[in-house]
């Protein structure tokens, strides 16, 4: 009996501590089907109208467009940032972890220090930089600027994963006649996949939730989901049902990415066991 209780303990602990989240997000779900804001869990007037943006066109300013355009833009934006950041960070992290050069401490320390400068407070400065680089109001410009903010974190995390790859394995591959790049591809890369997934997930999330860069540094009323949500809360009179539905829609793709990434991590762990 005691054993059963003990093995159930982690579940109980997790369940109880996660309770506020269950409550809050259920409420959000309920409200998305409610005609008017309801403070309890029972919707006031069950309706699917809040979700109508899934099949009907939505009005954005003076335009009529669909939610799917917003979704596509947001995925491209977040995805672009994730990929670019992954490439840049992995290169730098590999160099820092595996290669010998002077000033290594400085470069690594600089990355950490850079985190001390919050992105938003640099908005005006970034605006001027993009202006002088003639990258203002272009998509590459914004992606580069936003991605740069995530570099320090990515470099540190990837460096940690590279450090965790046993020397023996990489050395063995090189002894077997692989080029340095071949060793990387065959041996190191599979072992740092969890890190790659983690970093790309964070990069994706950063782009996914970004509002101010996408809005200020691109022309017109940028059609990304974060801007759309801002539009829903701009007035004092908020349509809570619509907001709830839209928010859930907004959270879904990111959640899916996370779940897929987690599955991939699991598979990697199994591979390590076998090796």
């Amino acid at each position: 009996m005691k054993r059963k209780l003990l093995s159930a303990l982690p579940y109980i602990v997790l369940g109880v501590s996660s309770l506020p989240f269950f409550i809050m997000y259920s409420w959000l779900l309920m409200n998305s089907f409610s005609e008017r804001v309801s403070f309890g869990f029972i919707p006031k007037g069950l309706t699917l109208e809040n979700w109508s943006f899934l099949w009907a066109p939505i009005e954005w300013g003076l335009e009529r467009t669909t939610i799917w355009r917003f979704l596509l833009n947001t995925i491209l934006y977040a995805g672009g940032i994730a990929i670019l950041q992954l490439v840049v960070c992995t290169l730098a992290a590999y160099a820092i972890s595996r290669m010998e050069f002077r000033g290594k401490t400085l470069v690594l320390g600089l990355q950490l220090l850079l985190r001390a400068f919050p992105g938003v407070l640099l908005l005006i400065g970034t605006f001027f930089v993009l202006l002088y680089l003639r990258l203002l109001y272009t998509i590459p410009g914004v992606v580069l600027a936003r991605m740069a903010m995530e570099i320090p974190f990515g470099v540190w995390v990837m460096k940690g994963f590279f450090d965790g790859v046993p020397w023996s394995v990489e050395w063995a591959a090189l002894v077997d006649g692989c080029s340095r790049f071949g060793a990387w591809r065959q041996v190191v890369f599979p072992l740092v996949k969890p890190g790659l997934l983690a970093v790309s997930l964070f990069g994706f999330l950063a782009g996914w939730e970004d509002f101010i860069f996408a809005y200020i540094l691109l022309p017109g009323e940028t059609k990304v989901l974060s801007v759309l949500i801002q539009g829903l809360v701009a007035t004092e009179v908020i349509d809570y049902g619509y907001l709830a539905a839209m928010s859930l829609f907004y959270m879904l793709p990111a959640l899916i990415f996370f779940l897929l990434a987690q599955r991939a991590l699991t598979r990697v762990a199994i591979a390590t066991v076998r090796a």
Partner: protein
Amino acid sequence: METRWKGAASQLLLVLAAPLRGLLLRGKTRWKLLPLLFLAPTAVFVFFFYLLPVALTGLISLTDMDMRLDWHFIGLANFVKAIAGDPRVPRIIMNTVIYVVFALILTVGLGLAIALITTHIREGAGIFFRGVWLLPNLTPPVVYILLWQWFFDSSRYGFLNSFLGLFGLPPKAWLTHYALPIVIPVNAFIGLSFCMIVFTSAIKSLPRSLITAAKVDGATTWQVCRWVIIPLLKWPIAFMTAWHLIAHINSYVYILLLTDGGPYYRSEVWALYTLHRSFDFYEFGYGAAMAMLLVAVTVLLTLGIWRVFGLGRLLEPSKIEV
């Protein structure tokens, strides 16, 4: 010390010129420049989108720039005002310290705990709970805060109050009387998901052999965690602590939305105050000065942590000769 700086400076220059040189040089010399090639993109981005804006912000802090966006230098007047001329500053500093310390403990501590627990239960359940704890990060800040506002709403209809109402207890104005204590976990949960993911990935990359060996020796799960896993996670833990220390010092979005620093500056932290002065009143010069002060403090703390955790030891010499 000086040679190190000189060396670093010349390294940076070389990094910027790396792609060109990589193409021109051949053979052994090229391999020596390989690290520089790898670092080149990072250096470029960091220079243009981090260092330059920071330098510009630094310059702006010496001006009285406002909506006009013109550069009118006034020296250190903004800094003097920020330190000595504002009666709200002492309170704000105290709030910031309390907030950062406790949020940090929650973020790293609870994140580690959840990572440990979810990696020791069934895989599906582990992913599920990690997903739940990631929800704060996925939710747009406005909505996340709306949820908490509903939870702590001061009227009879807020969740907590209606729950208490079931026991006949009167409603309380939570966000008024417990502003700072509520703001701390609300923010901590955001960073927590990051910690959780990094720790989980790290735990999953640990060689199973070590854990199996410990179990064979008769250790309980708790002992395995305490004596095998956590020590092996020393590096991620140290890094996450340093990272989130900085993140919490700079955080303001959720506080802005939840209490806006209220009531009466009781939950106002430095970063939020900087935002208020910069964007609410378009005092970019003053705001930039406050930002630079914050950055200075953060840099000092980071250097301190670097020393304390011995992060320099992470830079082992390369195992493979270049």
